[in-house]
């Protein structure tokens, strides 16, 4: 049935960032991607298929990813997604801007704590 809207992307670009980062390790197919993100986050993040596939298509359209026919571990045909050069550049840019943002947010939260206590 309808999915819980609170479990969508936390903020825009986060899912794309995780996809790009994951594919930097090695090319993967869709299911592998979903599983990897779930494991890597110790089950904290569950990737909604409803978001994953549209996001993959958007990244393909932007030219950040490439897809090629491949065979899954079970020998069935699937599509393998791989990071392109421009995808790599994009990822690096995004990561640094994310880090800046996280740093900023963390500092603000840290500064707010004493008043609270």
């Amino acid at each position: 049935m309808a999915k819980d809207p609170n479990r969508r992307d936390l903020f825009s670009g986060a899912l794309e960032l995780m996809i790009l980062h994951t594919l930097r390790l090695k090319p993967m197919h869709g299911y592998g991607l979903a599983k990897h993100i779930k494991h890597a986050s110790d089950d904290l993040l569950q990737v909604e298929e409803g978001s994953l596939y549209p996001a993959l298509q958007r990244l393909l359209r932007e030219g950040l990813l490439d897809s090629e026919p491949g065979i899954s571990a079970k020998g069935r045909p699937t599509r393998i997604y791989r990071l392109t050069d421009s995808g790599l550049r994009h990822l690096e840019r995004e990561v640094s801007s994310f880090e800046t943002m996280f740093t900023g947010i963390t500092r603000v939260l840290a500064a707010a704590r004493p008043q609270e206590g």
Partner: protein
Amino acid sequence: MAFFSRLFSRRRRYDDLAVSIREHLAERADELMADGMSRAEAEQTARREFGNVGLIEERSREAWQWPTLESMLADVRFALRQLAKSPGFTATAATTLALGIAVNATMFSMVSAFLMPRLPGRDPQRIVVVSSVNPDAGFQADLNPASAANYRDWKADTQTFSEMAAADEYRTGSLSGAGEQPEAITVSAISANYFSVFGVAPQLGRAFAPGEDEPGHDHVVILSHSLWERRFGADASVIGRTVGINREDYVVIGVMPADFRLLGFTPQLWTPLALTAADGAPDARNRRYLYLFARLAPNVTLSDARARIQVAAKRAQQDFPLNEKRWGASVRVLDDFLIANFGIRPALAVIMTVVGFVLLIACVNVAGLLFTRSVGRQKELAIRLSLGAGRVRIVRQLLTEGLVIALMGGAVGLILASFGIRVVRAALGFNEVISAVPVSLDRNVLLYAAIISIASAVLSSLAPALKASRSGVHADLKSESRGSSAGRSHSRMRTVLVGGEIALALFLLIGSALLIRGVYLLDHQKLGFNRDHLLTAGLRLDKAHYSDSTQRNQFVRSLLSHLKETPGVEDAAVTSVLPAAGPGSVPIQIKGKPEERTGEHRSADDVVVTPEYFNIIALPILRGRGFTASDQAGTPRVVVVSQEFARKHLAGEDALGKQVLLETQGGPAEWCQIIGITADVKSFSEDQRVDPEIYEDFEQRPVDSFSVMLRSKVEPTSLSSALRSSVARLDADLPLLRVMSMEGVLEAQRNGNPLFERLLATFAMLALILATIGIYGLIAYSVGQRSQEIGIRMALGAKSSDVSRMILREGLKVAGIGSAVGFVMAIPLPKLFDSIFSGLLFGAPEVYAIVVVTMLLVALAATLGPAQRATRVNLSAALRNE
């Protein structure tokens, strides 16, 4: 290229996507099976976890699409499939809209032609028309032509107008030459700089040179394109040729291009306007006959020009109180002036409102059909909603269906409109000024048709679409019965729609009936004279051959005596203006009655007639006498006045014997004695006005332009050739203008009225028919919906008359409420029309009653069929049905 490669690669992308998702599901299922689930259970769980596969695939595909175009195309394809499944519905809805769109597009072709005139020349937005403002005219007061003195004064203000030209647009004359029959033509006399103000040049030859508008140098002529084609066979060697205009020789120096055309002005040729010193004299300020076209000086705005010209008019009022008192001046941009001067705007506004309402009614009908259809499709829509289709998507789908219907309607409507425009164009042939305006299916009309098609799609399908998408998924899936509550709420919506439709139709019918009645009464008013068996023709005695008044008298005397001897002719007369054809008014003075108190100029319509005139039109002399042969050039000047003249200017006194002075042009003013009083004649056949009239004797003032009137024992037009030969016997080259029966003259003066009436009647009937179809559809549908209920009622013992009465009541209730609303809406109409159309009578309460009764009867008739059918419900079938 990227565009195409993307289009082709998209198919592959979609396949990739499907493959990815399939593998995703399969792997998940494998995992679940590894945990011990059965295959079937695992596959089902994998799917459930994944979510709505179709929806996710669609969302993912959207990444590749122009946001909407592709899904819109899909919607359109789907809509076409859906509509093809119910051709009856589709045809009805599309035809209804086609009718509405066709009448709108047809009428809009007139709006496009008359209210969006194509302007000639360079930078036409900088061209203005300077007019006098007539303090006494109610109608088009600020479009009055100006005097030659005004022209001289105003064009000197080069700060405001970089250049100003004058035109005497409505001269008539005869064109002769090269052994051809002389023909009557319309001439515009223009100042030499006229074409340069517009920034247009002749197609052939040259424009007038400076100085060619001086007396003595002015015998040059420029032809209009249509005259050049028709009369001169489009022969380029016509330049330099000599033609006769009013039997004086003119040299052709130019031919204008076909696209030089001003709305409402259709001269066949242009001659120079030679103004003389006399035109500048103070007493010439009363002669206002020049249209002044000017180009605004750089950096001068319209409001600057207005302010400055008003100052100039004020100054003239002070300097020439006798002639300029209370007269003002106005400035309008060219197109604004042309449209206002043409005076067709109010009629077109009314007609566009009417056809707009017709379209609205058509939309309501289609909305009703869509409601019914969406009831039938409730389950389909509910299933789609439950499968995850968004509400927006459903609304969009239904709107797309509406759009497809409307575009089909629009296409058919345009085809119908192209015929409609042909009909209208033929009907507009009633005078050459109107028929010169090209009414066609032009770009504006196409654009308008597209806009109203889309608007009617939204109008007719938005409400049904919103309603349909709002229905609860569960209720609709569960409800099996057609008599369910969802069905009821749809039919309630339709009831409101049909009620509104009837209100609109009634409003339209009342409005149209009031207008048609007003115009009809005007067209059939008593004019005060006998119009039967009269033949008329215009004659103009040119100065070259008839400069002397005795020559003119001689000509008229011989012509009349010869005509009277012609077999079939009872009597013959000459008049300067035909009755009810709008005589010109002249200022007058009455001896012993200075115009002190009134503060107004006395004036009267001035007509010059031969003695037979009163008799020939059966205009009774109430007191005193008419003219006789003994009133002659040498004898004391005498005049006959109308009853209205005596009432207005000599109230409470005996008019007979009083002395009147007419300030006419040319010749010394003389005191004239009133010798008779006639009954009144309407000044214009197309207006209710009765102005004071004063008749002069032709022998005492032989004017050079007049009409001949023959009273015949036979069909008047059968005497045309006899009249022609009588004139030719006296002067072979003299052309006869407008040979017509008096009936024909009056008919021509009705101008667009018959067309206006016919259009209104047609559209009002269309509205009535559409509203009738609407109420019929509503009741028929509701009977169908309630067949189960009716079956039960009848099974329980209701008589068929009870049932049909129940249905009739339902129909009449809708019609009654709708009519009441329409009635109230129509109450302010007479006042509104009074402010738009002058001189028509709109107060007619009986019209309201008649229309309401008609509406209710028609509604009753439309309900009768379904009511009858309701009683024939097959009991067992109706009850078993569900």
